[in-house]
Protein backbone atom coordinates (compact mmCIF):
# COMPACT_ATOMS: atom_id res chain seq x y z
CA UNK A 1 0.00 0.00 0.00
CA UNK A 2 1.38 3.41 -0.93
CA UNK A 3 1.47 6.38 1.42
CA UNK A 4 -1.34 7.94 -0.61
CA UNK A 5 -3.46 4.80 -0.26
CA UNK A 6 -2.88 4.72 3.50
CA UNK A 7 -3.76 8.39 3.83
CA UNK A 8 -6.94 7.87 1.79
CA UNK A 9 -7.87 4.83 3.85
CA UNK A 10 -7.31 6.76 7.07
CA UNK A 11 -9.58 9.56 5.81
CA UNK A 12 -12.25 7.06 4.78
CA UNK A 13 -12.07 5.30 8.15
CA UNK A 14 -12.29 8.61 9.96
CA UNK A 15 -15.35 9.54 7.90
CA UNK A 16 -16.99 6.16 8.45
CA UNK A 17 -16.47 6.30 12.21
CA UNK A 18 -17.83 9.83 12.40
CA UNK A 19 -20.90 9.10 10.29
CA UNK A 20 -21.79 6.20 12.59
CA UNK A 21 -21.57 8.50 15.63
CA UNK A 22 -25.01 10.01 16.13
CA UNK A 23 -23.63 13.02 17.98
CA UNK A 24 -20.69 13.88 15.73
CA UNK A 25 -22.01 12.91 12.30
CA UNK A 26 -23.76 16.25 11.90
CA UNK A 27 -20.36 17.98 11.98
CA UNK A 28 -17.57 18.09 9.44
CA UNK A 29 -14.48 18.59 11.60
CA UNK A 30 -10.87 18.87 10.55
CA UNK A 31 -8.49 16.03 11.37
CA UNK A 32 -8.03 16.77 15.07
CA UNK A 33 -11.07 17.58 17.21
CA UNK A 34 -9.92 19.94 19.94
CA UNK A 35 -13.29 20.36 21.63
CA UNK A 36 -16.79 18.94 21.28
CA UNK A 37 -19.26 20.84 23.40
CA UNK A 38 -22.68 19.32 23.87
CA UNK A 39 -24.49 21.55 26.34
CA UNK A 40 -26.50 18.69 27.78
CA UNK A 41 -23.56 18.12 30.08
CA UNK A 42 -22.52 21.59 31.11
CA UNK A 43 -20.99 24.74 29.69
CA UNK A 44 -17.69 23.11 28.66
CA UNK A 45 -15.62 26.16 29.47
CA UNK A 46 -17.79 28.69 27.66
CA UNK A 47 -17.85 31.71 29.92
CA UNK A 48 -18.85 35.34 29.92
CA UNK A 49 -16.28 37.51 28.17
CA UNK A 50 -14.74 39.65 30.88
CA UNK A 51 -12.76 42.83 30.57
CA UNK A 52 -9.43 43.59 32.19
CA UNK A 53 -9.81 44.94 35.73
CA UNK A 54 -7.22 46.62 37.92
CA UNK A 55 -5.16 45.21 40.77
CA UNK A 56 -8.08 45.12 43.20
CA UNK A 57 -10.86 44.17 40.82
CA UNK A 58 -12.62 47.54 40.71
CA UNK A 59 -15.65 47.58 38.42
CA UNK A 60 -14.80 51.12 37.35
CA UNK A 61 -11.45 49.94 35.99
CA UNK A 62 -13.25 47.93 33.31
CA UNK A 63 -14.22 49.54 30.01
CA UNK A 64 -17.91 50.43 30.27
CA UNK A 65 -18.70 48.47 27.10
CA UNK A 66 -16.84 45.47 28.56
CA UNK A 67 -18.43 45.31 32.02
CA UNK A 68 -21.55 43.35 31.33
CA UNK A 69 -21.31 40.59 28.72
CA UNK A 70 -23.73 38.37 30.69
CA UNK A 71 -23.21 34.84 31.96
CA UNK A 72 -24.17 32.09 29.49
CA UNK A 73 -27.25 30.08 30.41
CA UNK A 74 -27.97 26.39 30.06
CA UNK A 75 -31.36 26.65 28.44
CA UNK A 76 -34.14 24.16 27.84
CA UNK A 77 -35.64 26.79 25.51
CA UNK A 78 -38.70 27.26 27.64
CA UNK A 79 -41.42 29.42 26.07
CA UNK A 80 -44.76 30.86 27.11
CA UNK A 81 -46.78 29.15 24.37
CA UNK A 82 -45.23 25.70 23.89
CA UNK A 83 -43.31 25.09 27.10
CA UNK A 84 -39.98 23.34 26.73
CA UNK A 85 -38.74 23.41 23.15
CA UNK A 86 -35.49 21.63 24.01
CA UNK A 87 -32.39 21.49 21.84
CA UNK A 88 -31.37 19.85 18.59
CA UNK A 89 -29.78 17.07 20.60
CA UNK A 90 -31.15 16.47 24.07
CA UNK A 91 -32.83 19.08 26.22
CA UNK A 92 -30.21 21.78 26.74
CA UNK A 93 -28.43 24.36 24.65
CA UNK A 94 -26.25 27.28 25.66
CA UNK A 95 -28.09 30.60 25.50
CA UNK A 96 -26.44 33.99 25.24
CA UNK A 97 -29.00 36.58 26.30
CA UNK A 98 -28.57 40.32 25.96
CA UNK A 99 -29.98 42.93 28.26
CA UNK A 100 -33.07 44.81 27.13
CA UNK A 101 -30.82 47.74 26.26
CA UNK A 102 -30.03 49.11 22.81
CA UNK A 103 -26.56 48.13 21.73
CA UNK A 104 -25.98 45.58 24.47
CA UNK A 105 -23.94 42.48 23.56
CA UNK A 106 -24.02 39.10 25.29
CA UNK A 107 -20.78 37.25 24.69
CA UNK A 108 -19.57 33.77 25.53
CA UNK A 109 -15.92 32.89 25.00
CA UNK A 110 -13.87 29.69 25.03
CA UNK A 111 -10.18 29.90 25.87
CA UNK A 112 -7.52 27.53 24.51
CA UNK A 113 -4.01 27.71 23.10
CA UNK A 114 -2.55 26.38 19.85
CA UNK A 115 -0.27 23.36 19.66
CA UNK A 116 0.36 23.84 15.97
CA UNK A 117 -0.27 26.07 12.98
CA UNK A 118 -2.60 25.62 10.07
CA UNK A 119 -6.31 25.25 9.47
CA UNK A 120 -8.60 25.92 12.41
CA UNK A 121 -12.36 25.55 12.36
CA UNK A 122 -15.39 26.15 14.53
CA UNK A 123 -18.73 24.54 13.79
CA UNK A 124 -22.04 25.02 15.56
CA UNK A 125 -25.72 24.41 15.34
CA UNK A 126 -27.41 27.60 16.41
CA UNK A 127 -30.62 29.59 16.43
CA UNK A 128 -31.33 33.24 17.15
CA UNK A 129 -34.49 34.64 18.71
CA UNK A 130 -35.81 37.71 20.43
CA UNK A 131 -37.65 37.70 23.72
CA UNK A 132 -41.36 37.10 23.19
CA UNK A 133 -43.58 40.05 23.98
CA UNK A 134 -46.87 39.64 25.82
CA UNK A 135 -47.82 43.25 26.43
CA UNK A 136 -48.78 46.53 24.79
CA UNK A 137 -51.67 47.36 22.52
CA UNK A 138 -52.07 45.44 19.27
CA UNK A 139 -51.20 48.61 17.40
CA UNK A 140 -47.96 48.99 19.37
CA UNK A 141 -46.97 45.34 19.31
CA UNK A 142 -47.93 44.20 15.83
CA UNK A 143 -45.36 46.27 13.94
CA UNK A 144 -41.65 46.83 14.22
CA UNK A 145 -39.57 48.34 11.44
CA UNK A 146 -40.13 46.48 8.20
CA UNK A 147 -42.49 43.86 9.61
CA UNK A 148 -46.18 44.07 10.43
CA UNK A 149 -47.74 40.92 11.77
CA UNK A 150 -49.63 39.06 9.04
CA UNK A 151 -49.78 35.57 10.62
CA UNK A 152 -46.67 34.65 8.67
CA UNK A 153 -44.13 37.36 9.39
CA UNK A 154 -43.74 38.44 13.00
CA UNK A 155 -42.33 41.80 14.16
CA UNK A 156 -39.95 40.02 16.53
CA UNK A 157 -37.76 39.04 13.58
CA UNK A 158 -36.99 42.72 12.98
CA UNK A 159 -36.01 43.11 16.66
CA UNK A 160 -32.96 40.84 16.40
CA UNK A 161 -29.77 42.81 15.73
CA UNK A 162 -26.89 40.49 14.94
CA UNK A 163 -24.87 37.51 16.03
CA UNK A 164 -21.12 37.11 15.64
CA UNK A 165 -18.60 34.29 15.54
CA UNK A 166 -15.02 35.37 16.05
CA UNK A 167 -11.55 34.47 17.23
CA UNK A 168 -8.93 36.06 19.41
CA UNK A 169 -5.59 34.63 18.30
CA UNK A 170 -1.93 35.44 18.81
CA UNK A 171 1.08 33.92 17.06
CA UNK A 172 4.65 35.16 17.24
CA UNK A 173 3.35 38.11 19.25
CA UNK A 174 0.92 39.18 16.52
CA UNK A 175 -2.64 39.31 17.80
CA UNK A 176 -5.65 39.30 15.49
CA UNK A 177 -9.35 38.53 15.22
CA UNK A 178 -11.18 36.61 12.52
CA UNK A 179 -14.73 37.95 12.68
CA UNK A 180 -17.93 37.15 10.83
CA UNK A 181 -21.26 38.69 11.81
CA UNK A 182 -24.76 37.96 10.64
CA UNK A 183 -26.42 41.37 10.60
CA UNK A 184 -30.14 40.74 10.79
CA UNK A 185 -31.67 44.18 11.29
CA UNK A 186 -30.75 47.76 12.11
CA UNK A 187 -31.92 49.81 15.08
CA UNK A 188 -35.05 50.89 13.22
CA UNK A 189 -36.01 47.31 12.43
CA UNK A 190 -35.06 47.43 8.78
CA UNK A 191 -34.05 43.95 7.71
CA UNK A 192 -30.47 43.63 6.45
CA UNK A 193 -29.72 39.88 6.69
CA UNK A 194 -26.18 39.95 5.37
CA UNK A 195 -22.82 38.69 6.57
CA UNK A 196 -20.38 41.41 7.58
CA UNK A 197 -16.83 41.77 8.85
CA UNK A 198 -14.82 44.57 10.48
CA UNK A 199 -11.76 46.13 8.85
CA UNK A 200 -10.18 47.24 12.14
CA UNK A 201 -9.01 45.25 15.16
CA UNK A 202 -11.12 45.30 18.31
CA UNK A 203 -10.44 48.23 20.68
CA UNK A 204 -8.49 47.04 23.71
CA UNK A 205 -8.64 47.86 27.43
CA UNK A 206 -5.00 48.94 27.22
CA UNK A 207 -5.92 51.57 24.62
CA UNK A 208 -8.51 52.97 27.02
CA UNK A 209 -5.91 52.92 29.78
CA UNK A 210 -3.69 54.98 27.47
CA UNK A 211 -6.55 57.40 26.77
CA UNK A 212 -7.07 56.36 23.14
CA UNK A 213 -10.79 55.70 23.61
CA UNK A 214 -13.53 55.50 26.22
CA UNK A 215 -16.60 53.82 24.79
CA UNK A 216 -20.00 54.00 26.44
CA UNK A 217 -22.02 51.07 27.80
CA UNK A 218 -23.62 49.26 24.86
CA UNK A 219 -20.95 50.25 22.35
CA UNK A 220 -20.17 47.51 19.84
CA UNK A 221 -16.99 46.06 21.38
CA UNK A 222 -15.98 44.17 18.21
CA UNK A 223 -15.71 47.37 16.16
CA UNK A 224 -17.65 50.34 17.58
CA UNK A 225 -17.75 52.49 14.43
CA UNK A 226 -20.38 51.20 11.94
CA UNK A 227 -18.20 52.64 9.15
CA UNK A 228 -15.57 50.02 10.01
CA UNK A 229 -17.83 47.17 8.86
CA UNK A 230 -18.21 45.78 5.31
CA UNK A 231 -20.79 43.40 3.90
CA UNK A 232 -19.50 40.20 2.41
CA UNK A 233 -22.12 40.42 -0.33
CA UNK A 234 -25.02 42.66 -1.26
CA UNK A 235 -27.27 39.63 -1.53
CA UNK A 236 -29.75 39.06 1.27
CA UNK A 237 -29.22 35.78 3.13
CA UNK A 238 -32.43 33.80 3.45
CA UNK A 239 -32.78 32.09 6.82
CA UNK A 240 -35.30 30.05 8.77
CA UNK A 241 -36.18 32.38 11.65
CA UNK A 242 -39.61 30.73 11.39
CA UNK A 243 -42.05 33.52 11.98
CA UNK A 244 -42.43 33.75 15.76
CA UNK A 245 -39.95 34.11 18.65
CA UNK A 246 -40.76 30.72 20.14
CA UNK A 247 -40.03 28.36 17.23
CA UNK A 248 -36.44 27.22 17.03
CA UNK A 249 -34.94 25.82 13.85
CA UNK A 250 -31.27 24.97 14.20
CA UNK A 251 -28.88 26.35 11.58
CA UNK A 252 -25.46 24.97 10.73
CA UNK A 253 -22.46 27.30 10.86
CA UNK A 254 -18.85 26.51 9.95
CA UNK A 255 -16.05 29.09 10.05
CA UNK A 256 -12.66 28.02 8.69
CA UNK A 257 -9.46 30.03 9.13
CA UNK A 258 -5.73 29.49 8.71
CA UNK A 259 -3.43 30.38 11.58
CA UNK A 260 -0.29 29.80 9.51
CA UNK A 261 -1.21 32.76 7.32
CA UNK A 262 -3.45 34.59 9.86
CA UNK A 263 -6.24 34.61 7.32
CA UNK A 264 -9.88 33.75 6.76
CA UNK A 265 -10.69 30.82 4.49
CA UNK A 266 -14.37 29.94 4.36
CA UNK A 267 -17.76 30.42 5.99
CA UNK A 268 -20.57 27.92 5.62
CA UNK A 269 -24.09 28.77 6.70
CA UNK A 270 -26.42 25.85 6.03
CA UNK A 271 -25.97 25.14 2.31
CA UNK A 272 -24.17 28.42 1.48
CA UNK A 273 -20.38 28.15 1.34
CA UNK A 274 -18.68 31.53 1.13
CA UNK A 275 -15.08 32.10 0.11
CA UNK A 276 -13.46 34.38 2.71
CA UNK A 277 -9.92 34.43 1.35
CA UNK A 278 -10.39 38.06 0.31
CA UNK A 279 -11.74 39.09 3.72
CA UNK A 280 -9.03 40.90 5.68
CA UNK A 281 -7.93 39.98 9.20
CA UNK A 282 -6.51 43.22 10.63
CA UNK A 283 -3.78 42.55 13.21
CA UNK A 284 -2.86 44.83 16.11
CA UNK A 285 0.07 47.07 15.35
CA UNK A 286 1.82 46.38 18.67
CA UNK A 287 3.31 43.03 19.56
CA UNK A 288 1.79 41.21 22.53
CA UNK A 289 3.45 39.33 25.36
CA UNK A 290 1.71 36.82 27.63
CA UNK A 291 -0.66 35.82 24.82
CA UNK A 292 1.51 33.46 22.76
CA UNK A 293 -0.53 30.77 20.99
CA UNK A 294 -3.77 32.36 22.23
CA UNK A 295 -6.70 30.46 20.75
CA UNK A 296 -10.06 31.91 21.73
CA UNK A 297 -13.39 31.67 19.99
CA UNK A 298 -16.39 33.75 20.95
CA UNK A 299 -20.03 33.99 19.99
CA UNK A 300 -22.02 37.11 20.68
CA UNK A 301 -25.51 38.44 20.18
CA UNK A 302 -26.20 42.17 19.97
CA UNK A 303 -29.53 43.89 20.27
CA UNK A 304 -30.03 47.23 18.57
CA UNK A 305 -33.79 47.29 19.09
CA UNK A 306 -33.54 47.22 22.87
CA UNK A 307 -35.51 43.96 22.99
CA UNK A 308 -33.58 41.08 24.56
CA UNK A 309 -31.83 39.07 21.84
CA UNK A 310 -30.92 35.41 22.33
CA UNK A 311 -28.37 33.21 20.58
CA UNK A 312 -28.90 29.50 21.27
CA UNK A 313 -26.06 27.06 20.56
CA UNK A 314 -26.99 23.39 20.52
CA UNK A 315 -23.43 22.14 20.23
CA UNK A 316 -20.04 23.40 19.10
CA UNK A 317 -16.99 21.64 17.64
CA UNK A 318 -13.54 23.22 17.34
CA UNK A 319 -11.09 21.27 15.18
CA UNK A 320 -7.62 21.77 13.76
CA UNK A 321 -5.60 20.57 10.79
CA UNK A 322 -2.39 20.24 12.79
Amino acid at each position, binding site marked *: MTTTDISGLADALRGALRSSDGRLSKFNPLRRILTFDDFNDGLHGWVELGGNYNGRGDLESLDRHFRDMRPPQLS*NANFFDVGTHGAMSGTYSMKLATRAHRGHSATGIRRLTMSGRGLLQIEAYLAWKTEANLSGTEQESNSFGDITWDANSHPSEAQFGSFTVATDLCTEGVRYHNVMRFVNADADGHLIQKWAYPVVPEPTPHERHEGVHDYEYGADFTAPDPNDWRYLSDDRVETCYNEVPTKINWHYLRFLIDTSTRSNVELQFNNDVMDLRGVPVPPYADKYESLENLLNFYFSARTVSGVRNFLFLDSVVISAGW
Partner: protein
Amino acid sequence: MAMRQSQSAVIERGVDLDTVHSTDPFEVAWAGEARWFVQFLRPAPGCRVSIQVQISPDGISWIDHESVAARETEAVGMVSIPVAQFGHWLRLTTSKVAGESSPSLRIYLELKE
Protein backbone atom coordinates in the same frame (compact mmCIF):
# COMPACT_ATOMS: atom_id res chain seq x y z
CA MET B 1 -20.42 8.40 38.72
CA ALA B 2 -20.58 11.72 36.94
CA MET B 3 -19.78 14.75 39.05
CA ARG B 4 -22.59 17.21 39.64
CA GLN B 5 -22.90 20.03 37.15
CA SER B 6 -22.63 23.51 38.62
CA GLN B 7 -22.56 27.12 37.53
CA SER B 8 -21.73 30.35 39.25
CA ALA B 9 -23.28 33.27 37.40
CA VAL B 10 -22.37 36.85 38.20
CA ILE B 11 -25.78 38.28 37.52
CA GLU B 12 -24.88 41.87 38.47
CA ARG B 13 -21.42 43.19 39.05
CA GLY B 14 -22.17 46.63 40.40
CA VAL B 15 -25.70 47.93 40.04
CA ASP B 16 -26.78 51.07 41.88
CA LEU B 17 -29.96 50.48 43.83
CA ASP B 18 -31.96 53.72 43.73
CA THR B 19 -35.46 52.29 44.18
CA VAL B 20 -36.25 48.78 42.86
CA HIS B 21 -34.12 46.47 40.72
CA SER B 22 -34.89 43.07 39.21
CA THR B 23 -32.19 40.87 37.74
CA ASP B 24 -32.54 39.68 34.16
CA PRO B 25 -34.33 36.33 33.67
CA PHE B 26 -32.04 33.34 34.20
CA GLU B 27 -32.77 29.78 33.10
CA VAL B 28 -32.26 27.20 35.84
CA ALA B 29 -34.29 24.18 34.72
CA TRP B 30 -31.24 21.91 34.95
CA ALA B 31 -30.41 22.85 38.56
CA GLY B 32 -31.77 21.30 41.74
CA GLU B 33 -30.48 23.87 44.16
CA ALA B 34 -29.63 27.52 44.07
CA ARG B 35 -28.18 30.15 46.33
CA TRP B 36 -28.09 33.90 45.84
CA PHE B 37 -25.35 36.11 47.23
CA VAL B 38 -25.90 39.84 47.43
CA GLN B 39 -22.78 41.81 48.22
CA PHE B 40 -22.93 45.52 48.96
CA LEU B 41 -19.89 46.68 46.98
CA ARG B 42 -20.59 50.24 47.98
CA PRO B 43 -22.35 49.93 51.32
CA ALA B 44 -24.98 52.39 52.43
CA PRO B 45 -25.08 52.27 56.26
CA GLY B 46 -28.53 53.17 57.55
CA CYS B 47 -30.12 52.22 54.26
CA ARG B 48 -32.40 49.17 54.40
CA VAL B 49 -32.99 46.84 51.48
CA SER B 50 -35.61 44.15 50.95
CA ILE B 51 -34.59 41.14 48.83
CA GLN B 52 -37.17 38.86 47.22
CA VAL B 53 -36.61 35.66 45.22
CA GLN B 54 -38.97 35.44 42.25
CA ILE B 55 -39.96 32.62 39.91
CA SER B 56 -41.61 32.40 36.51
CA PRO B 57 -43.07 29.79 34.15
CA ASP B 58 -41.74 31.52 31.03
CA GLY B 59 -39.16 34.15 31.94
CA ILE B 60 -41.71 36.89 31.27
CA SER B 61 -44.30 36.82 34.07
CA TRP B 62 -42.98 36.74 37.64
CA ILE B 63 -44.27 36.02 41.14
CA ASP B 64 -42.63 35.82 44.55
CA HIS B 65 -41.32 32.39 45.55
CA GLU B 66 -43.91 31.10 48.03
CA SER B 67 -41.44 29.61 50.49
CA VAL B 68 -38.68 32.17 50.55
CA ALA B 69 -39.76 35.19 52.56
CA ALA B 70 -38.43 38.60 51.63
CA ARG B 71 -35.14 39.26 53.45
CA GLU B 72 -34.71 42.75 54.84
CA THR B 73 -31.17 43.84 55.57
CA GLU B 74 -29.02 46.87 56.18
CA ALA B 75 -27.10 47.67 52.99
CA VAL B 76 -23.70 46.54 54.28
CA GLY B 77 -21.64 43.38 53.95
CA MET B 78 -23.13 40.39 52.19
CA VAL B 79 -26.28 38.31 52.54
CA SER B 80 -27.08 34.88 51.14
CA ILE B 81 -30.44 33.30 50.31
CA PRO B 82 -30.83 29.59 49.52
CA VAL B 83 -33.70 28.50 47.32
CA ALA B 84 -35.14 25.16 46.22
CA GLN B 85 -38.13 24.05 44.11
CA PHE B 86 -37.79 27.07 41.87
CA GLY B 87 -38.96 25.68 38.54
CA HIS B 88 -37.20 26.82 35.39
CA TRP B 89 -36.52 30.53 35.90
CA LEU B 90 -35.10 32.66 38.71
CA ARG B 91 -34.62 36.32 39.35
CA LEU B 92 -33.97 38.49 42.38
CA THR B 93 -35.78 41.73 43.13
CA THR B 94 -34.15 44.16 45.54
CA SER B 95 -36.02 47.19 46.87
CA LYS B 96 -34.76 50.08 48.93
CA VAL B 97 -37.20 50.45 51.78
CA ALA B 98 -35.45 53.10 53.91
CA GLY B 99 -32.52 55.49 53.65
CA GLU B 100 -31.31 58.21 51.33
CA SER B 101 -28.09 56.92 49.78
CA SER B 102 -27.87 54.20 47.11
CA PRO B 103 -25.79 51.09 47.66
CA SER B 104 -24.04 49.31 44.80
CA LEU B 105 -24.75 45.59 44.54
CA ARG B 106 -22.87 42.60 43.22
CA ILE B 107 -25.23 39.64 42.82
CA TYR B 108 -24.17 36.03 42.34
CA LEU B 109 -26.39 33.07 41.51
CA GLU B 110 -24.85 29.72 42.46
CA LEU B 111 -26.48 26.71 40.81
CA LYS B 112 -25.96 23.00 41.27
CA GLU B 113 -27.62 19.83 39.99
